[in-house]
């Protein structure tokens, strides 16, 4: 026993620089992620700000009963999965295509210019994005409807039609983030050994064959890791943009768990109910990421842990 502690102290002395480097991350996790978990208990309490977390009485699973007894919560849950799954299907492959396309461009000036153009929307704030979307899709002045009327289609009031909400939301998400997300894949492509391409050229491979047989298999681990992370965040729909864009008329397809929490919890000051919904959200996300990781490890031997 004594020797083990001695060994550990020895080890610390030798490697202390590494632990110092690690410390900020650990402190960040403790302060911002582990300490707040204490407050999670209000999901099972009748919470009063004045009485405090410890002083509020327990109510068991009442808030969860309320949530699952509410059609609107179930609808929000369904919408969350729909929006997430659709944006995963359409949004996830696009940065990979972009990265491969950028990689194949040989003209440096054109490459840099187009990269800058697709990265730029990432740096615009959500409020401004929503303003751009509302203006672009406006029936009287919007560019989309101007185009439609030019080809002879009657203007459509997109933002109050439930069937248009998801395409607009997911599309604007792709427009904003696809370019920036492609950076990680570009970095992965840059790491592929040039000798692979050289020998392929010697063997007479076409550009297309090189992309298909060398580039994609080489960056596959990165793709899978990114996919697992995306699945872990599946329920974290960017709800700021939804709040700015939705209307009662589009709640049917637009209301997600986070906007439901916002309306019930923050506007209605029901922190306990909001905490219960948030806790449920986190548990589902945890299960999803565990599942994705396990499946990936079993079939491709690539996993986060």
């Amino acid at each position, binding site marked *: 026993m004594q020797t083990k502690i001695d060994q550990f102290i020895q080890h610390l002395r030798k490697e202390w620089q590494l632990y110092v480097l690690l410390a900020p991350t650990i402190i960040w996790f403790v302060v911002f992620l582990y300490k707040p978990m204490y407050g999670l208990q209000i999901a099972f309490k009748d919470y*009063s*700000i*004045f*009485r*405090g977390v410890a002083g509020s009485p327990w109510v068991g699973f009442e808030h969860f009963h*309320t949530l699952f007894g*509410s*059609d*609107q919560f179930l609808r929000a849950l369904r919408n969350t999965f729909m929006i997430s799954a659709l944006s995963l299907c359409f949004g996830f492959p696009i940065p990979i295509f972009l990265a491969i396309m950028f990689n194949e461009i040989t003209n440096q000036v054109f490459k840099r210019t187009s990269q800058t153009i697709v990265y730029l929307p990432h740096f615009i704030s959500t409020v401004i994005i929503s303003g751009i979307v*509302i203006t672009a899709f*406006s*029936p*009287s002045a919007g560019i989309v409807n101007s185009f439609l009327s030019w080809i002879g289609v009657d203007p459509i*009031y997109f*933002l*109050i*039609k439930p069937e248009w909400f998801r395409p607009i939301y997911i599309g604007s998400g792709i427009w904003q983030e696809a370019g920036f997300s492609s950076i990680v894949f570009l970095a992965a492509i840059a790491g592929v050994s040039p000798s692979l391409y050289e020998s392929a050229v010697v063997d007479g491979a076409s550009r297309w064959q090189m992309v298909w047989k060398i580039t994609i298999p080489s960056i596959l681990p990165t793709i899978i890791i990114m996919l697992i992370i995306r699945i872990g965040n599946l329920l974290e729909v960017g709800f700021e943009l939804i709040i700015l864009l939705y*209307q*009662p*008329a589009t*709640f*049917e397809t637009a209301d997600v768990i986070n906007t439901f929490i916002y*309306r*019930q919890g923050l506007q*209605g*000051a*029901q922190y306990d109910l909001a905490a219960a919904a948030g806790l449920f959200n986190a548990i589902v996300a945890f299960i999803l990421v565990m599942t994705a990781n396990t499946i990936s490890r079993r079939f491709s031997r690539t996993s986060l842990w």
Partner: protein
Amino acid sequence: MRKLTLLAAAMLTTSISAPAFADGHLRITDEPVELTVHLHNKRYSYDENWPVEQAARELTGVHLKGATFGTNTPSSQEAHNLMLASGDIPHIVGGDKIKDMVNEYGPQGAFVPLNDLIEEHAPNLKAFFDKYPEKMAAVSSFDGNLYYIPYLPDGKYGRAYWMRQDWLDTLGLEQPQNVDELYDVLTAFRNDDPNGNGVQDEIPFFARQWPEVLRLLTFWDGRSSGSDTYHDFHVVDGQIKHGYAIDSYKTGIENIAKWYAEGLIDPEVFTRGSSAREFLLSENLGGMTHDWFASTSGYNISLKDKVPGFDFAVIAPPASISGKRVAEHRRIPVKPDGWAISHTNPDPVTTIKYFDFYFTEEGRRLANFGIEGEQYEMVDGQPIFTDEFKAKGPINSSLYQVGSQVQRGYFQDFNYEIQWTNPSALRGIELYDAGDYLIDQFLGVAFNEEEQAVYDKKWSSISTYMQEKQQAWILGSADINAEWDDYQATLEKMGYSDVIEAMQSAYDRQYGG
């Protein structure tokens, strides 16, 4: 340097105001008392250097030290929650929207009930509430106690119907006197190109907030809200009702949907947002709206040069199908803002006397007009703002800077506002006064814990459902006639009657049935 001038100004003001009340009849304590105060508003928070505050200190001997939480957040609700959660509540808690907080946490012991204190130590407050018992009832908590002294706005009028008088003149039309004439006028606005640019681009009725469209419900004897909050309940003969569940709602929505489909209502009203009024008026496109007296009248001046002949006039509410003229929106007579005594306060008696000070003649003038000789002069016994002070910009913002018109518990004096209200708004106010169009407001209820639980659990979903259906009907994606029975059955299933019952029992308790 800046500090020095401030100090000099402070000394100057005290030396001016002190002699006026030199007899000291407003003095509360001989020993100076210090109390801490949290007073939050998105535009300002308590500042002990406010000249008004220094004058009050001089007169009463009570010194309030600023201890406002969340001064960097625009949300007062957030600031109040931050203060409560800190566990370190200042002696006096006030500012914007404190009613729900004090009425929920007061009975739990966070705030001191004021009824007995007022009875024994605050003659002016007592006289005021004896005169207006309904105002006291409106802000009391479910246990019957009063936990805060409210900010009580004066003046009745909020929003009015505004119409382009010059457009009416161009088309040779009269102001519409009933709903059918209104329909004809709006149709003419749409078809006959009153702005004269040769294009049918006019938007007959528009609104900055889409729920203003629902005000039109009153033309078919419906209601959109009973208070200055949208989608609120209203009261008919002591019975709580909701405008979206009564029978006249069906006719109203049916007609609004028709108007919307015909282009009489701004097709983009749901997404145009807060800049709608500015944009549509300055582009010479908007014909009619329902908006605030004071701020809307300002366009008659600011757009004078940009839009030739621009004349946006207040019209009397057109009569409904049954001949009633109703102005549904009015200024709320008692606000959820004000101040309260917290459980940490060492001297509630002195504090209530201090609150009482602002209900004395001198205190009320201080809270409304600022310092005599600085912001106003007494002319024929009336405080009149000096020209120099009026030239500084909007009077209300300038008054915030000296500590007047801030949300302590006080009774506003409408004279303050009349002095800087635009003539076109004043004419409108006269018109509304003459017609007596205002109706009583629902001032809210204080729930006990059981009622609160019913309301919290059910109302948010019901209200969401109502608004979803409402927009679908107005937009024409569903038909109210086909769905009305289903709609009522669904409301019932979601617990509409339970909520009404909870509201009713709270209402009966609070306003004596």
